[in-house]
Structure formats: structure tokens, C-alpha cells
């Protein structure tokens, strides 16, 4: 199987060396440059065209009249800042003449950078191409006549959504902030949670036309360096024109693109992302999307919810076991029902069998067809509900679920038992915290129903084994997908299926191969009042009467 996948991968993702070379006939932009301002502005107009959001402001300043020009994109750059902190000091004679040196073409570059501009973030671009790249991200470029280097001011500021509650991963208890579409906001949200010097945010640019920033976030003295190098290598190998969502990155870097199962977890929650980074995983932030990727991922991460770690350990453990159970219901229940009804009626207690048989009386279809049709209908209803505006969506669920369901039973087309099964399965699917894991399970339900309809429970077990062979073969960045259940330490297994109290989280997951496995000292919590164990009285309040 692995060999088949590797062949497919070669077809899908050809050798990056070949595709990485520049295209034939592409012009070399480095040659299209000139230190002279007039030529340069002509070149800019040529390259950026007549777009109406490109702003060029020419002026001359100083007693010698040094010619300069400012270039920025309206809407991406902060105009107020440009006016007040770049143009104003440059045009104000009091400021320019304040310095003993006279502003000339030769010293203009250094003088503006070091003295005149009131600006914190000033970069230098060696040529026009570099400068244009930064301008297109929202920076402002200052061209000085006769100077090859370009001053670039960090003026990025655009309309953005404030952090709001993550809709896909709601929690009763926990922070309400979710990631937004703006990278800078996102990094600040994360930095605010991890105030440690070793938090690293590394930038890579992906997408020839979109030039999307992709950040790798990790803690340098915890992360597994081999995994990190592998993530870097895979992202660097992406050669595409556009990256509009982290889903693009996910599909380019995952180990087995032809698997139904998601091999990379994504999250909108800042606390979850921070927890993953501290645990030694790597967070891949993509610009323009609130969904962050977490690698490496194992399958059992999908049954964990952020809230597990904020609620009391007992209820969290109970919920986790419940989710595991629910996962099995979502995957197997309809197929199991079909198998029992079609092949193994003797397994049911007689009274139950009789009532089911009575409800199935007069149903024109075999159980397997009934199940497939009902599951199919349910998927249609869901799809219709998801895409519609919220108000109309409710109408769909009422008409679809209640009216049609009821009518179908009354008309004798489907049995009530089947409706119960399908509805239970649907609810079980919603109880899986990770949406991407839930949809792959929804997809696997159909072949399992067919197998159960053809060969009964034996077919169902064959299907289970097939899924298991597939899952056992998967890896996510060198970590087996089924870990820690396979290949894991006992401690990791316990921590996956239960949620021990926080003071017992002494080590990070062993399967990640981290540099520092220990996360806290044993027994360093102070619980009882020191000295005496008696109850507190009003004398202890420290207030004097």
C-alpha cells in the first residue's frame, strides 16, 4: 500500500527541483532598475499598470531640492501615518535644516533613515523588485533620486475584523478569542499567551501570485528539530500560484493525500493553538485565514476538545470516553443495524425483534436500501441547511426533518426504527468535536452499510479491518497516526483516553520525540495552609479590630 501511495505521490507532487527553476522567457526584474527617479517611476508605472489604488507622490526637499517619491497602496497602508511621520518631517524646513549636515542626494538616504523620519520600523530594500514586493504587502517605499537602495516604512494597516468567538469550536468555559484573518493580530494573540523568549515565529512565502505569508510557530527548545526541518522542507517545496486558505497548505504537505482521514488538525482557538505549541507541536499560520494547522497530528487528537482541560478532570474524562463511544456509533450504527436486521435477527431479544419486525412490516425496501436512502437524504438535508442563510436553514430542517420524516413513516416508506437509527447517527456525528474528522467518518459510513448489507456482521468486520490496515499505515510527520495507542508509552495512552488532573501532566507526549520531555516538577503545588491544618477563623483575616 505504501508503495502505491508513493507512486501516486510522485505523480501528484513531482520533484520540486524541476518545478522550482524559473520559467523560460520570464524577464529578469533585477535588470529593470535604475537609481534615477524618473526612470524608476516610469518602470513602476509599467509594472504596476494603471491600478487606481497605487499612489505615487513626488516631491523635492531640502535647500538643494533633492527629488524623492513615495509609493504605497491605498487601503493597505496607513495614510495618516505616512502624512504625519514621513511626508511632514521631510517637507518641513525646520526639521530638515535642523541638522548640521545639509540634505543632498548623497547623504539623503542615511539622513532620512537615521534622523528625519519619525518612524520605528524602517527597512532597506536593495532594489525595486524587493521594494515592490513589500509595497504590495502594505508598506510604503521612499525612492530618492540617484540612490539605488529604497527605504521601506512599515505602514501596514488595513480594515480588519477584531478577534471574535470561534464559531467552529465553541466552548462553555474558556477564552472567547479566536484567530482572525490578519496574521499580525494572530501572532500577537499567541505571543500574549506565551511570553517566553524561545517562542519562534518563522516566515515563509508561498504562492507565486498570492505571495501568502506562512508562519511556523514553535518553541525552539522543545520542538523536535527533525520534524521542524521536515515541515520547512515540505512548505518550501510548494510551488503553486495561489494559497487562499490553510486547506491548500494542508493538502500540499500531508503525508497521504489520498487518505479519507485528515492528517493535520486545524483550529481557530488561540488557547488550543498555544497548548499545541507548548506541547511541542508546530503551528502553521496562514495569512488571511483564521484556521491554523497543527502538526504532527494523531487520530486521537480529534476526540479531544479544548474545554477538557478547563473543566474538572472527572467530567472531562467521562466526556472523552463518551466521544470515543460516539465516534463508533457515528461510524458503525447504521451498518450494524442493517447487518442485524438482514442476517442476524437471532441476536436481538425476542420482544425487541418482534416490535422491529412489526414496524418493518409493509416496508417495500430491504434494510440496506432503506439505510442508504435515509442516510443520503440526511446528507442532502445537512448540505441544504449549511449553505442557506440561518433563518431559512431552520425552515429546511423543519420541513426536511419533521415533515418529510413523519410523512415517510406514515406512508410506510421507511420504518420508524430506521429513522431512529439515522437520527442517532446524525447526532453522534455532531458530537465529534473535530469537523474534519466527522466528515471523513460520514463518508466511510456508506461503504460500511453496503458491506453489512452484503455480508452481515462479517462484512462489517472486514470493513473495520480494512479501515484499520489503512489507519495503521498512516503517519503524520513521522508520528504514527494511531499513536499513542500503538507504539506509545502507557502514560501517553492514559492521557489520551482520560484527562488526569493538571498536576499529573508531568511529561509531554513521548511520541513527538521532543528536546524537553518534562513540563513541570512533581508535587510542587501548595495546597494546605502552612504550619497548621486548622480551619481559618476571623482572626486570620489580618484585620485589626
Amino acid at each position: 500500500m505504501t508503495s502505491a501511495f508513493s507512486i501516486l505521490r510522485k505523480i501528484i507532487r513531482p520533484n520540486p527541483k524541476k518545478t522550482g527553476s524559473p520559467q523560460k522567457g520570464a524577464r529578469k526584474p533585477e535588470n529593470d532598475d535604475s537609481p534615477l527617479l524618473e526612470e524608476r517611476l516610469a518602470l513602476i508605472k509599467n509594472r504596476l499598470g494603471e491600478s487606481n489604488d497605487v499612489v505615487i507622490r513626488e516631491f523635492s526637499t531640502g535647500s538643494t531640492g533633492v527629488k524623492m517619491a513615495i509609493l504605497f497602496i491605498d487601503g493597505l497602508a496607513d495614510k495618516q501615518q505616512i502624512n504625519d511621520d514621513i511626508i511632514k518631517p521631510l517637507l518641513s524646513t525646520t526639521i530638515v535644516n535642523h541638522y548640521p549636515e545639509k540634505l543632498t542626494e548623497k547623504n539623503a538616504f542615511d539622513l532620512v533613515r537615521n534622523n528625519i523620519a519619525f518612524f520605528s520600523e524602517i527597512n532597506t530594500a536593495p532594489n525595486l523588485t524587493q521594494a515592490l514586493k513589500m509595497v504590495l504587502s502594505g508598506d510604503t517605499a521612499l525612492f530618492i533620486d540617484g540612490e539605488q537602495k529604497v527605504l521601506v516604512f512599515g505602514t501596514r494597516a488595513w480594515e480588519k475584523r477584531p478577534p471574535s468567538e470561534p464559531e467552529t469550536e465553541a466552548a462553555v468555559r474558556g477564552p472567547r478569542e479566536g484567530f482572525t484573518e490578519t496574521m499580525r493580530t494572530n501572532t500577537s494573540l499567541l505571543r500574549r499567551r506565551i511570553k517566553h523568549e524561545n517562542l519562534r515565529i518563522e516566515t515563509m512565502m508561498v504562492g507565486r501570485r498570492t505571495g501568502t505569508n506562512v508562519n511556523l510557530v514553535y518553541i525552539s527548545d522543545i520542538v523536535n528539530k527533525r520534524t521542524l526541518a521536515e515541515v520547512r522542507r515540505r512548505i518550501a517545496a510548494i510551488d503553486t500560484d495561489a494559497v487562499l486558505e490553510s486547506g491548500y497548505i494542508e493538502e500540499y504537505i500531508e503525508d497521504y493525500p489520498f487518505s479519507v482521514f485528515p492528517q493535520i488538525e486545524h483550529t481557530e482557538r488561540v488557547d488550543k493553538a498555544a497548548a499545541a505549541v507548548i506541547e511541542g507541536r508546530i503551528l502553521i499560520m496562514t495569512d488571511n485565514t483564521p484556521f491554523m494547522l497543527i502538526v504532527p497530528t494523531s487520530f486521537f487528537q480529534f476526540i479531544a476538545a479544548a474545554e477538557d482541560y478547563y473543566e474538572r478532570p472527572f467530567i472531562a474524562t467521562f466526556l472523552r470516553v463518551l466521544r470515543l463511544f460516539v465516534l463508533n456509533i457515528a461510524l458503525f450504527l447504521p451498518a450494524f443495524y442493517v447487518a442485524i436486521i438482514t442476517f442476524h435477527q437471532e441476536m436481538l431479544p425476542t420482544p425487541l425483534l418482534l416490535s422491529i419486525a412489526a414496524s418493518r412490516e409493509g416496508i417495500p425496501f430491504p434494510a440496506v436500501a432503506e439505510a442508504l436512502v435515509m442516510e443520503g437524504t440526511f446528507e442532502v438535508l445537512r448540505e441544504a441547511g449549511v449553505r442557506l442563510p440561518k433563518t431559512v436553514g431552520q425552515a429546511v430542517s423543519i420541513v426536511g426533518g419533521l415533515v418529510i420524516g413523519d410523512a415517510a413513516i406514515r406512508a410506510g416508506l421507511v420504518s420508524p426504527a430506521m429513522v431512529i437509527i439515522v437520527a442517532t447517527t446524525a447526532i453522534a456525528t455532531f458530537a465529534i468535536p473535530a469537523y474534519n474528522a466527522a466528515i471523513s467518518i460520514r463518508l466511510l459510513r456508506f461503504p460500511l452499510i453496503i458491506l453489512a448489507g452484503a455480508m452481515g456482521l462479517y462484512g462489517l468486520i472486514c470493513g473495520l479491518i480494512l479501515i484499520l490496515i489503512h489507519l495503521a499505515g498512516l503517519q503524520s510527520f513521522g508520528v504514527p497516526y494511531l499513536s499513542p495507542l500503538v507504539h506509545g508509552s502507557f502514560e501517553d495512552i492514559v492521557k489520551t483516553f482520560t484527562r488526569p488532573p493538571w498536576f499529573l501532566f508531568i511529561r509531554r507526549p513521548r511520541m513527538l520525540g521532543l528536546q524537553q520531555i518534562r513540563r513541570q516538577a512533581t508535587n510542587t503545588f501548595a495546597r494546605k495552609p502552612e504550619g497548621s491544618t486548622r480551619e481559618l477563623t476571623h482572626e486570620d483575616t489580618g484585620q485589626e479590630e
Partner: protein
Amino acid sequence: MLEKGKISPRQSGELLFTTILATSILIVPAVTTSIAAQDAWLAIMIGTIPGFVLLGILCWLGRKHPAQTLFQYAETILGKWPGKFFGLLYIWLLLQTAATTTRQFSDYLSTAFMPLTPLSVFTLSLIFLSVFAAISGLEIIARMNEFIILLVTSFLVLVTVLSLPNWEPANLLPVLARGIMPVLRASATPAVFMGEVLVAGILRPYTTRPGRTFVAGATALFFAALLLAVGLVSAIAIFGPTLVATFRFPLHMFVRTINIGDILTRFEVIVMVTWVAGVFIKLSVFLYSTSLGLAQILGLRQYRPVVFPLGIMVAVSSFLFFDNIVVISDAIRLVAPRLYGIYYLVLTPLLVIVTVVREKIFGHKFGEKRQ
């Protein structure tokens, strides 16, 4: 190296456990009880001893040839052509066992669950799954087994506990009423299944710490024998030895008796799940071992191309070797002990004898040059 993956000693032990337990739990109780009556559990204990000895021999040989499988060091010890012939004998034994297993599997499903379905449906689907797993590689079989072993052991423990209300401990008495001889004779059948520990000789070079193979394998043997004995004791305690001896699948029958409050009933489907999952692992291990061995004997660079043909061979021979259910019972009761006896008493000791003779008399040093 044909196999690049490595498994941990624990995983290799778990593979042995599932391989041994998967079929024996259904087959052994009836056969041993028919000979040794209520002392059958003693027969299982005695039948385990040859397994330990075989495991010890394999580990001793493995220590002398750390990077080699059974098939490879047979060539080193006996010389090229005799060694290859010797290896083929072992492959034949494994294939024979695989065919028997497959046929038992299909027979059980067909008689106990789906009498109208043709045997070939079960055989071919099982072979297909096992071929798929064997092609995926040793690591994947081992990982799946870790999953399945949880399923198998927890189900077995569950049914045993639930059957406790039906126990009649008096059925287990008297102990050794007819002397030790029937027990010894009955121990031949469990010994056959314990002989499947042979696989350890093939897995050893692919474990991360080969030195631990013996401990892992011995633990596997111990627990397999324990669960087997527990299953047998529960069957005898519920039905009494005379009845058990007439059943074809005593475990299946005793699970059928479980009835807790009219709700927890009809647990035999659990037996089926255990059986299918276990036999699947067993067959995958056998197919993997035989294809690896064949590839090593023939000097192929990949073992994967031979997996499918061998799988088809197993499927076909499972039909050709046995005409009906009676033949297969006889094969297990009468033929298998003699066949395995040859391997226990003649072939495997031969490797040891030749090694000792070459080392002591001709001063040859094994284990010096490593591959």
C-alpha cells in the same frame, strides 16, 4: 534487507500471542477434552512446554545469527542448497497451517452464522484482507495487532466473567482420575498450536532489541496458554467434559449460554469478532513470513510480489486439502501433531546439532561475520 521496518519486542510478543490464540481458542478445547476429559486444562499446560523449548532453540540460534531469519541461517548452517531445501520445508509447514486455519475459519463462519453463504466468500475475503496487510508490511501488521489484541483479550475476559453464574465447578472434578497418560496424549494438540511460535525465528531480526525476543515470546506463550485454559475451564465448568467433547466449537457454545437479565445475551457475535480479527492477524503473519522466507530463499529483492500468489495458494489448498468438516477435524487431531512432531523433534534440533558439531568438532565460528 527485504524488510526495512522494525517492531518492538513487545509488538513481536503480541504478534505471537494473537497468532497462537486466534485459532486454538476455538479448536483446542473440544479435541483435548475428548481425550483428557476434565483434565484438559492440564494438557494445555503440558502442551505449552514444547513451545517454550522451541522458542529457546530459535533464540539460541538467533543469537548466533543476529541479522538473519530462520531461512537465512538455515543456509549458513547447513550450506546453500540443503539450507534452501530446509527453508522450503518450513515454508511448507507454515502454508499448510495457513490453509488449515483458513478452512477452519470459513467452516466456522459458515456453520455457526451464515449457512447459506458459500465458503469461498469467507475464504477469499479473508485472503484479500491478509494479502493487503502483508503487503503493507510488518510494522503495520504489528500496529494493527496492538489494536486487535485489546479487542480480543477484553472480549474473552468479558465473556468469561459474564459466564460465571452458569459455572458448575464440580464438573472439573476429579482431577487426574484416569492417570497421567490421557493428559499427555491430549497435550499433543495444544503443542501443535504452541509450535506456531516458530514465527519468532522469522521476526527476531526485525525487532529493535532482538535480545528481548525470548522474554517477549515466553510471555506471549504464557498468556496465550492461560487464556486458552481459562476458556476451556469455563466450557467444562458449564457443560461438563462429555458434552464439551461433542461440540465442535465449545467456546461458541458456552458464550451462547450467557444471559444477563434478558438484555445481555447472544454474545456469540463477540466470538465471531474475536475470531475474525485474530485469524486475520494470524494469516497476515503467516503470509508475511512465508513470502519473506520465499523471497530470501529465492534471492528476490522484494517480498511483496510473492504475497498475492501465496495467498491464492493458501485459498486454493484450503479447499483442496480438506473434503469436509470431518477431514479437517482428523487433520487437527491426528495429522498435525505428527507433522509438527517432525519439526519439533527432527528438523529444528537438526539445526542445533549441526551448529554444535561444526563449532565443537570443526572449530567453525558462527556469528562472527554479520550481514
